[in-house]
């Protein structure tokens, strides 16, 4: 009896068998032994197309671009592009608080910030680049993102005032709450 699933399997097998699909009578039983994999839809994505969209940065730093930025440069960018929402020193804005709160997680009123809660510094680069500033995401250059990342970490006492971050330096930072998460995977 014909079933839809069996029909799909046949289409995939024929697609894999190539010209066979155009000449059903010529098909050999070999077609059914080919792993049924594809419907043949979509186009190949080129390396250049992928490069333009492949913006994520992983926890280990994979995906971080070339570039570098200092705390001082970051402070200037922060004041121009971030302070209006995140407030002075990342503590008194209308947007989520960025700094402070270390040591409060087990208290009755925990303060969740980059310094008190975030497990990976690399995530800061990924997020600032993809989503900030709110009114023009993906507008900062890699140097600017490294700089704002450095300044945000400095506000939390995680890097010094003279710190300069690049891919290697950022990936090497160990955040205070790095071991504060328990994967459940339920």
């Amino acid at each position: 009896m014909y079933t839809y699933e069996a029909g799909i399997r046949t289409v995939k097998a024929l697609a894999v068998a190539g010209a066979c699909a155009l000449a059903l009578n010529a098909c050999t039983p070999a077609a059914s032994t080919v792993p049924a994999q594809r419907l043949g839809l979509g186009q190949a994505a080129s390396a250049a197309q992928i490069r333009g969209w492949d913006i994520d940065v992983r926890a280990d730093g994979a995906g971080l671009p070339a570039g570098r930025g200092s705390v001082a440069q970051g402070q200037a960018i922060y004041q121009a592009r971030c302070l209006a929402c995140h407030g002075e020193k990342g503590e008194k804005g209308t947007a989520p608080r960025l700094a402070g709160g270390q040591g409060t997680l087990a208290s009755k009123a925990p303060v969740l910030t980059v310094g008190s809660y975030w497990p990976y510094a690399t995530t800061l680069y990924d997020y600032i680049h993809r989503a900030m500033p709110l009114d023009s995401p993906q507008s900062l250059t890699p140097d600017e993102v490294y700089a704002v990342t450095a300044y945000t970490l400095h506000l939390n006492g995680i890097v010094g005032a003279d710190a300069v971050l690049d891919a290697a330096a950022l990936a090497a930072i160990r955040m205070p709450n790095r071991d504060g998460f328990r994967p459940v995977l339920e």
Partner: protein
Amino acid sequence: MDIVRQQADADTDSPAPASPRRRRFIARGAVASLAAAGSASVVPGAAQATTPDNLPPNIPQWMREPGAGFLNPAYGLPSPFEKAVVRKLPDQPAAFPTATRTPLQSLFGSTTPNGLFFERHHGGVPAIDPAQHRLMLHGLVERPLLLSMKDLLRFPAVSRSHFLECSGNSMAEFKAPGKGSVQDIHGLISGAEWTGVRLADVLAEAGLQPSASWILAEGADAAAMTRSIPLAKALDDALLVYGQNGEMLRPEQGYPLRLLLPGFEGNMSIKWLRRLKVGDAPFQTREETSKYTDLMPDGTARQFTFTMGVKSVITAPSARQVLDGHGFREISGLAWSGHGRITRVEVSLDGGRHWQAALLDGPVQSRALTRFRFPWVWSGQEAILQSRAVDDAGNVQPTRAALVKSDGQNSIYHYNAIQSWKVASNGEVSNVHV
């Protein structure tokens, strides 16, 4: 909103003689919305006082002349009398509003109309031209692919009913009983019939490499929202969805393409989906580290708590409604579980001391909203109404006390405790913690 009292006020204001048009205007203002107040609002007496000409034995005005013509408008809208049935923002204005909530108290059955489906977005709703939208598949695949919407519409289609619940739904109840309606308190839950393609089928087109274990899903919105999806879920029941309740997705629901992960926290069902990158570890995005992780009383946080727990809530009667009289009415509500099917819902009228089984409206589907109903004769006594759901994995909806005992009051996400509505002897319904 006290619909019943509003109606009473309007009644006393209405002049006795009025032209038919004037009467229709009055009726519109006075009745507001039948559905808005659910079982608490059926007030034939009030209607009689404002529009006696339209009640038996008289011939209603709307039978004495032809009604509106076709295509008026071309895309149909609810009756103007239902204008109060809308999504809403929280009562407290926020610098950065995060979500609108579904009017659960006004809806029937287990399907949320598309215009009332709750909204949550982090960078606004993008206006995407479907002809210029692409889904990119890359990473640990054999053949990186670019798929257009036309390509995706050629895949074998499936339609399935599933709920979507924001992980932060009902979060304020961890702290104190909210003073709003069931919409305000629990309105980040909706359900729909989704149409799309199996993610497993699309992944098969690209071919997975042996080390593949996680997939990063990324949206084409200004937040470029990203979450890591376990491969097992992607190959199990994940869908790439373009249809919702029989039509294309609404812009605020991810038009033209979204991920749908049945039973998982809503944030993971990435809207405006533009990219799937296959990897061998979670990507540790901001939304799965600093957000959507559950802080426990000891200061550590649970991460990757994806499944929404078994939960139910009585929607009629519910907070801010006023029962309009003694006698029979139906208690009704919704139940759902991210683990599977709802197998049982029980209702208590006395704050959880005694429980009785409610009727489940079928078909009861896995990871979908299930409507339950329970017959009740209210004699005017004070009551504490509760519902408690059980799913086919044996999970039982916890009491609030049990949930707070295990998770504390700062975990923000995954609040699924039993809801208590107090019915006062004057008929007023309010939210209480017992």
